[in-house]
């Protein structure tokens, strides 16, 4: 009942605001959606207590969904420790974002629709994290994708927003291509899609082979790689990350909720949830580590040079997701989920803070036209500092605990890929600190580069926007120190059976015994990064331009986001359109029709025109030809019999 309420209250809110929004009005929609999501958030606290602290995991069966042969999937709510953590993250950030949006969206003419989408998203995300089988997980997975599509394209009159929305959906679908095949493979191998049944059977399939696309491959490796492709799409990992920066076309609260705190972390959640499968697939774990590490460094390099405030934070999200993945890749799922947990708070804070900045600058997002306003919006300024300190991994702030344990676990894996992840992770940490403070300095310090008119209007956001930020700020400060002992401490009891790690995978254990230099290095590079940012943007503001000039090629490479979009445009978009046109004009029209019906039809039409003069109406033609058919048959029959 409790869990049912947590999951379905947001859905009720979405339906009420979505279908009856025109009668409820803006105010009514606010009350309904914010009220129900907040209720859901409050209920998730006792849920966390019962499940995570007291260890009462539970599976609530609702009703059957798809039953076909051996395949049985039900709607169910699986609430274990991992789910409980996600419930807290999703409902609390969602509630905060709902409240914040009342202020942020107050001029928008379509508020009921906006709040309906937000609540629907919350429901879909909750359905994802409470799934008890692969298919319901896929439901939540696609549901959040749909809401993301709708919310990115919320301002539907903007062509760029529409393009970004479609791009997000389709790139995600490329990932889902793998996910869907993965589910098929799971059912093919295990004859079930229920988590417990599958997890229980996994050890029996170690070192077995499956025939996939004509080759014999290791069963669990194939399945986990397919599923991981899905995770890469949703969590914007290298190669499938291109949609995330574009998704910033959506309203800023959406970026905070969906594209920072919750939806994009679904891939990490999936890998953690499926840890009983991934643990037995060494190759896939290696792949996860490499992909995560490469994403972390790639996104960080792009983040260095972007000028749009939201894009900087978007690339930072992409990079942090990379950290979470390589933590999972070295079997430190707990560390990955812990970073997911803290990241949700400080990244939502940064995004909403950025929203407050954008709000203050009358909609301006380009940092080159900001600056010099920290005295005018002190609250926002302070909150952005807290978010950046947490992201940069400065001691006592949340990110310090989670990022350090992730890096230490990478070191503690004592494997080649672990070392790679550690080195790239350390480099990315330095870059992270650099671009975070670059953002702070460009936005708030120096001489203002905004126009007089804009500067005149700069104002602090209303309380309905600031108060939710205070809540997130509390999370960004305390979430690390409070939960570190619980989530990644020496006592591993917290996660129960929800995360499975083979006894031979000791990265997390080793992490606790990391030498001092490993523990200190992230801090050293972070401080160096901050110092460099100070030097380049406060002390010597002319330096960045000169550097860009000196290293022109590299600068352009980063600025243009490693040219992924251009590459994909040529490889997929253009070629799909060209092939489509070719099939249509040359295939259907010229070949099939040309040699088929049109060729024949031109003959038939000649005859038919003559016949039509006698009698109009196609029934007669039809009957006539049927008759010919019968005659032909009888002739043939007689011929056979005659033989």
């Amino acid at each position: 009942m409790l869990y049912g309420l947590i999951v379905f209250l947001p859905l009720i809110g979405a339906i009420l605001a979505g279908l009856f929004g025109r009668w409820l009005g803006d105010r009514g929609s606010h009350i309904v959606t914010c009220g129900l999501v907040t209720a859901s958030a409050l209920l998730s606290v006792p849920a966390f207590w019962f499940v995570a602290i007291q260890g009462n995991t539970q599976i609530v069966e609702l009703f059957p969904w798809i039953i076909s042969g051996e395949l049985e999937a039900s709607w169910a709510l699986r609430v274990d420790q991992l789910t409980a953590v996600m419930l807290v993250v999703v409902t609390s950030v969602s509630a905060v974002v709902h409240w914040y949006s009342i202020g942020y969206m107050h001029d928008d003419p379509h508020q009921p629709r906006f709040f309906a989408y937000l609540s629907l998203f919350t429901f879909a995300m909750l359905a994802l994290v409470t799934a008890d089988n692969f298919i319901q997980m896929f439901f939540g997975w696609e549901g959040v994708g749909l809401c993301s599509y709708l919310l990115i394209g919320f301002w539907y009159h903007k062509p760029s927003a529409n393009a970004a929305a479609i791009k997000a959906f389709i790139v995600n679908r490329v990932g889902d291509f793998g996910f869907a095949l993965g589910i098929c493979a799971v059912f093919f191998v295990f004859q079930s899609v229920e988590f417990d049944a599958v997890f229980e059977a996994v050890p029996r399939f170690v070192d077995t082979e499956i025939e996939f696309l004509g080759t014999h491959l290791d069963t669990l490796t194939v399945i986990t790689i397919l599923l991981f492709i899905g995770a890469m799409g949703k969590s914007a990992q290298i190669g499938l990350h291109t949609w995330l920066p574009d998704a910033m076309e959506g309203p800023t609260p959406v970026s905070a909720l969906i594209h920072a705190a919750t939806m994009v972390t679904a891939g990490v959640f999936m890998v953690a949830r499926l840890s009983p499968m991934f643990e037995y697939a060494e190759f896939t774990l290696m792949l996860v580590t490499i992909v995560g590490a490469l994403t972390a460094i790639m996104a960080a390099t792009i983040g260095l040079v972007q000028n749009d405030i939201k894009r900087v934070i978007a690339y930072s999200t992409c990079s942090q997701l990379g950290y979470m993945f390589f933590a999972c890749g070295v079997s430190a799922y707990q560390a990955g989920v812990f970073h997911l947990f803290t990241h949700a708070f400080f990244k939502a804070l940064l995004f909403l803070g950025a929203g407050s900045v954008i709000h203050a600058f009358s909609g301006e997002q380009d940092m080159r036209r900001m600056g010099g306003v920290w005295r005018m919006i002190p609250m926002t300024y302070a909150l952005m500092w807290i978010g950046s300190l947490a992201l940069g991994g400065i001691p006592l702030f949340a990110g310090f605990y989670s990022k350090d344990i992730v890096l230490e676990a990478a070191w503690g894996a004592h494997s080649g890929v672990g070392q790679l992840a550690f080195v790239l992770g350390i480099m990315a940490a330095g870059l992270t600190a650099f671009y975070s403070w670059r953002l702070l300095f460009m936005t708030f310090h120096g001489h203002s580069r905004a126009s007089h008119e804009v500067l005149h209007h700069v104002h602090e956001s209303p309380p309905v926007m600031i108060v939710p930020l205070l809540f997130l700020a509390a999370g960004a400060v305390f979430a690390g120190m409070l939960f570190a002992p619980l989530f990644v401490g020496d006592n591993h009891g917290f996660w129960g059976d929800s995360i499975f790690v083979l006894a031979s995978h000791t990265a997390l254990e080793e992490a606790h015994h990391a030498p001092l230099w490993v523990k200190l290095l992230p801090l050293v590079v972070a401080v160096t990064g901050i110092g460099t940012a100070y030097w380049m943007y406060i002390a010597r503001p002319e330096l960045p331009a000169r550097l860009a000039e000196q290293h022109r090629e590299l600068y352009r490479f980063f600025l243009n986001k490693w040219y992924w979009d251009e590459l994909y445009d040529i490889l997929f978009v253009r070629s799909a359109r060209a092939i489509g046109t070719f099939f249509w004009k040359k295939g259907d029209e010229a070949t099939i029709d040309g040699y088929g019906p049109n060729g024949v039809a031109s003959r038939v039409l000649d005859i038919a025109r003559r016949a039509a003069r006698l009698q109009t109406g196609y029934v007669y033609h039809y009957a006539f030809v049927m008759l010919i058919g019968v005659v032909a048959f009888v002739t043939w029959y007689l011929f056979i019999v005659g033989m």
Partner: protein
Amino acid sequence: MDWPILSTLTFLPLVGALFILVVRGEGDVVARNARNIALWTTVITFFLSLLLWINFDVEEAGFQFEERVGWIAEGIDYHMGIDGMSLPFILLTTFLMPICILASWTSIQTRVREYMIAFLVMETLMIGVFGALDFVLFYLFFEGGLIPMFLLIGIWGSDNRVYATFKFFLYTLLGSVLMLLGILWLYFQFGTTDIPELMRAGIDPFWQRLLWLAFFAAFAVKIPMWPVHTWLPDAHVQAPTAGSVILAAVLLKIGGYGFLRISIPILPDATVTFTPLVYALSIIAIIYTSLVALMQEDMKKLIAYSSIAHMGFVTIGLFTFTPAGVEGAIMVMLSHGLVSAALFLCVGVVYDRLHTREIARYGGLVNRMPLYAFCFLVFTVANVGLPGTSGFVGEFLVLVGAFQVNTWVAFFATTSVILSAAYALWLYRRVVFGELTRADLKEILDLNRREVAILAPLVALIILFGVWPVPLLELFHAPVENLIEQHEAALAGVRNTLNFAAAR
């Protein structure tokens, strides 16, 4: 049931058509009465079909509500009956008919009486084809259904209707003649055209292959499969809205139903022989037509191409001979029946207002038509196969079934996950989103009550069967299981004989 409910259901629309025929009076009065009679007839037929569902025993794998009366000759009886594979199609037909009549309420102004008669006759023929258990009877309904469709396109169609009608005609003719030959061969060989009896006939493998190809010609054109699909986009473009609805929702399904009812059970050996062919054509269809759909500039053509891609899923699923695959294929057909109908109705709504199907003429409709945008969105995501809509259940089951049989097939079929999203969202974006710029669109009105009444039940069913498809799935569990068992038994039988022959 001690009265022939199935025949009553089948011929009830015909009775309505007779009533319309005798209506006398002024033009307007005739039109009004014709519409009302047609609506009431189809509504009553729908409720009668629900009675069929209520009294249907889902545990029973065999035929129910059977009726048999002597007919043309010894062995060719009027034999009707349904099982769980035919009932949902009957329900689909009867459910969509009142919607079609309502959709034509104002858009058809010429020859209303003839139009309604054509529709009612078509309903009889469509229910008949799903209820027929005699091959000759099946053929009669199968072919007969084309005649009203020709008339609908030929008389009430758009500008280029003659070309479309002839194309439609040529293709279907080719298939039907071959099927007729096959039926007659069966009759002269076995002295019966009773479908259940033919399933037990055990036809010689060589002849099975010839017959299979003959029937394949008929069903592949109907469903349609690549490369005999090009009649469909033209027929859809030219047909009036309700004609497109019936064409996409029901007539295409007759092809799939034909495979299910005839090719697979009667010709098991040949079915296996030609399975690779079916896979190949289906995969080509999925990828090829999805890419073609991406480039279309006409709304109806785009949806027509997307239909062909979806039918590729149907043929793959049917020929996996796994429970998931076959049930998934049936589910895809049913879901596509709802979704494609809904999409064509959506085109009809704006076509009635602006009289163009050209995508570029629209844009920004959401500004004036939020309700329409919402319905269209539900149908679009159902077309994309989003979980939670009926579109997902079937496609997913087909993929599951395909993966069990051949991973290459599953791999290529799954590309539809990406391609369908591309063409469907691109259509939606161009029609619904964006700035409202054109002058004539600025006055466009949102759905009226009649249109809401048409689209709301479709929205509800698409979501209901997406979340809770069990009522449909349980209908065809037993017969599909039976079908697969018999298929395997038949194959084993053939192999045994062959082994025996080899041993001798």
